[in-house]
C-alpha cells in the first residue's frame, strides 16, 4: 500500500513495516500479538491522520507531482463515456502534451481538454512531460471554439509544470498562443469548468484555466512559476523549491481562501494515486454539480460571470480611487471655432478625426 511513498511519508512506511514484521513473526511462531498489533495499527491511523491533515505546501507539491498520480486521460476514462480524442491544431502539428476531444458526462456531450503527462519515460518524452508547445495551446483553442460553435460545455484538466521552454516553441509564438487562449476563453458562450488535478504551472496552466469555475484537488498546486523556478531566480538556488512553495502560497486551500478557486475537491489520504477510482468519482460529482449550475445560465450570463470572476482578482495596497481625467479634446470638435462646410461632418464624426496635426497640438495645449 505504501508503494511510491514520498520522503516525508517515511515514518508511516516504517511503522507499517514494523506492523507487518510483527504480524509475520507472530504467524510463524504461533504467538498471539493481537493486542500489540491493534495498538500499533491505532498509532498508525493516528499518525496518518495527523500527517495528512497538516501537509505543508512543499509536501503537497510532492504529492501533486507523484509519478503515479492520475493524469488527464485517467480522469477522462473514469469520468466520461464515449470519449473521442481529436488531434492537431490544423496549423503545424499534434502536440501530445495536450489531449482533447468529445465525450459525454452523464449523457451530456461536452468538450474535454487537458495537459497530459507521460506514464513512463518514453511516454513523457513524446508528451514533453506535459509541457505544451504553441501547437498544443492552439489545438486546445480549436477544440474550445468548436465547443462554442456547437454549444457544448467545456471541461479542462490542468496538470503542467508550464509551457515548454524550447527554441522552436518561441519561434512559433509560445507567447501569442497562450495570450490568445486567455483572450478567447474569456469570450466563449458556453460553460467552462476547470479542474487543477496536479500542478498548475504558470501561463501554460492558465491557458486552459479561464473558466467560470476553477476547482482544485486537495493536494494540487497552482502558481505563477514553478517553485523550482522561483527558487532559482529569487535565491539562485533551485534546491530551495520547498521554501519557495511555502512563500508563494500555492495550495488549493490558499487559492480557495483568496477566492480564486471555487471549490477544493478532497483526495484520499496520501493523495489521488492511492485511490484513483474513488478520486475520479469525487471529481465527477463536483464537475457535474458546477456544470448543472452553469448550464442553467444564458450565454450572456456565462460570459459576464467569467469576466467578473477574473476582473475582480488582484490586491491593491493603496490608491487608485481618483476618477480618471477626461481625454484630451479631439481636434476640431463641433464646438471648435472653425466653420465646417460639409454637412455630413456635423456630429463629431470621421471628418473631425482627420484634422491636421498643428491644430490638434494647439487645442491640446490650451
Amino acid at each position: 500500500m505504501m508503494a511510491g511513498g514520498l520522503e516525508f511519508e517515511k515514518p508511516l512506511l516504517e511503522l507499517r513495516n514494523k506492523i507487518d514484521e510483527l504480524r509475520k513473526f507472530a504467524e510463524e511462531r504461533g504467538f498471539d500479538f493481537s493486542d500489540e498489533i491493534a495498538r500499533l495499527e491505532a498509532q498508525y491511523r493516528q499518525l496518518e491522520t495527523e500527517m495528512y491533515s497538516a501537509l505543508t505546501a512543499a509536501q503537497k507539491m510532492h504529492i501533486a507531482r507523484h509519478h503515479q498520480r492520475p493524469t488527464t486521460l485517467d480522469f477522462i476514462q473514469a469520468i466520461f463515456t464515449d470519449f473521442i480524442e481529436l488531434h492537431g491544431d490544423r496549423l503545424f502539428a499534434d502536440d501530445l502534451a495536450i489531449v482533447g476531444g468529445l465525450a459525454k458526462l452523464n449523457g451530456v456531450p461536452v468538450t474535454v481538454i487537458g495537459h497530459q503527462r507521460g506514464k513512463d519515460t518514453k511516454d513523457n518524452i513524446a508528451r514533453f512531460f506535459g509541457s505544451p508547445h504553441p501547437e498544443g495551446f492552439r489545438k486546445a483553442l480549436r477544440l474550445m471554439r468548436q465547443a462554442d460553435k456547437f454549444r457544448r460545455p467545456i471541461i479542462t484538466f490542468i496538470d503542467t509544470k508550464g509551457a515548454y521552454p524550447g527554441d522552436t516553441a518561441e519561434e512559433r509564438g509560445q507567447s501569442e498562443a497562450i495570450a490568445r487562449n486567455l483572450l478567447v476563453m474569456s469570450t466563449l458562450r458556453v460553460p467552462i469548468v476547470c479542474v487543477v488535478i496536479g500542478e498548475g504551472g504558470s501561463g501554460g496552466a492558465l491557458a486552459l484555466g479561464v473558466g467560470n469555475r476553477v476547482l482544485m484537488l486537495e493536494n494540487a498546486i497552482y502558481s505563477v512559476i514553478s517553485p523550482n523556478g522561483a527558487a532559482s531566480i529569487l535565491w539562485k538556488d533551485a534546491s530551495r523549491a520547498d521554501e519557495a512553495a511555502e512563500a508563494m502560497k500555492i495550495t488549493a486551500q490558499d487559492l480557495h481562501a483568496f477566492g480564486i478557486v471555487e471549490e477544493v475537491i478532497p483526495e484520499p489520504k496520501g493523495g489521488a494515486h492511492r485511490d484513483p477510482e474513488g478520486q475520479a468519482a469525487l471529481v465527477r460529482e463536483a464537475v457535474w454539480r458546477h456544470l448543472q449550475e452553469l448550464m442553467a445560465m444564458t450565454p450572456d450570463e456565462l460570459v459576464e460571470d467569467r469576466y467578473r470572476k477574473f476582473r475582480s482578482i488582484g490586491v491593491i495596497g493603496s490608491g487608485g480611487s481618483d476618477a480618471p481625467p477626461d481625454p484630451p479634446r479631439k481636434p476640431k470638435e463641433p464646438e471648435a471655432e472653425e466653420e465646417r462646410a460639409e454637412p455630413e461632418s456635423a456630429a463629431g464624426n470621421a471628418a473631425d478625426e482627420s484634422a491636421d496635426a498643428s491644430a490638434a497640438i494647439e487645442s491640446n495645449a490650451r
Partner: protein
Amino acid sequence: MFKDLFHKKRYATIPAERPVKRDIPEGLMNKCPKCGNIQYSKELEKNLKVCTSCGYHFRLTARERIAMTMDDGLLHEFDADMQSGDPLGFPGYAAKLEQQKAKTGMNEAVVTGTGSIDGHPVVVGVMDFHFFTGSMGSVVGEKITRAIEYARDKRLPLILFSTSGGARMQESIFSLMQMAKTSAALARFSDEGGLYISVMTDPTTGGVTASFASLGDYNLAEPGALIGFAGRIVIEQTIRQKLPDNFQTAEFNLQHGQLDKVVHRKDMRTVLAKLLDMHSMRRAE
C-alpha cells in the same frame, strides 16, 4: 475645476525632473553596451537615446518614453497613486517595493493615462523596466485593465508600450491571474472595434508577452528588443544547446512571423500617428 486637479499629474519633457537612471551612468559621457562607442550624453539624448554609432536602443524610463511620444510630452495620468500590497506576505516583498519606489520615484512599473499623438486622442500605458524589472503584479494588471476599460468607454485607441521581466513572483497567483484579466478586458475592447497597438520594447518577456503585449491589432517592436516567453538560460538548459545570438530579438520575432513591424525609435511617433490616422474613420460609427 476637476480638470485642473489632474494638470498637476502631467509629465513634462523637462529632463531635470527625471529620476536616477540605472542603465546610463550620470555624467557627460555614455558608453554603448553593444558597440562600446563612447558618446556625449547630450548627443545621446538628442538622438532619442539611440547609439549614434550602432543604433542600439537604450532602455527608456516611462517618463522618457512619454516625453518623446506624446504631443507636448503630456500624459494625463490615471491611478498615479496606486500602490502594491503584499497579498501573500511574501518574505522581503514589502521592503523591495519601498526600495524600488525610492530608486525610481515611481509607484509602480506602469504609467497609464490619456493624451494625444499627432492630434489623435489616445489611451496609453507605458511600462518601466527600472521599477521591479517591469514585473506585473496586481497593480500593473489593474492599471492596464483600467486603461483598456477607459479606452473602451471613451472609444479611444489604445497603445501599450511593454517592457517586463514577466509576472511578479512575489504575488504568485494574483500576478498570474492578471494575464487573464488584461486579456479578457482586451477581448471586450476588441469586440467593440477598439484599436490596440502593442509596442514591445527591450525586454518584453514572460507573462506580459504571454498576455496583453502579444494581443495587439498591430504588434510593433523596437530594433534589437528581446521579446519572448521563456528565458534564454532555461531554454538552453532544456534543449541542451547553445542558442544563436539573435534568438528572441525583435528581428528574430519578425522573421518568425510574430511581429508586424520593427520600428526605429526615431520613426515610432510617425508610425503610430499613421496607424491612428488610418483608423480615425472608425469612431464615427
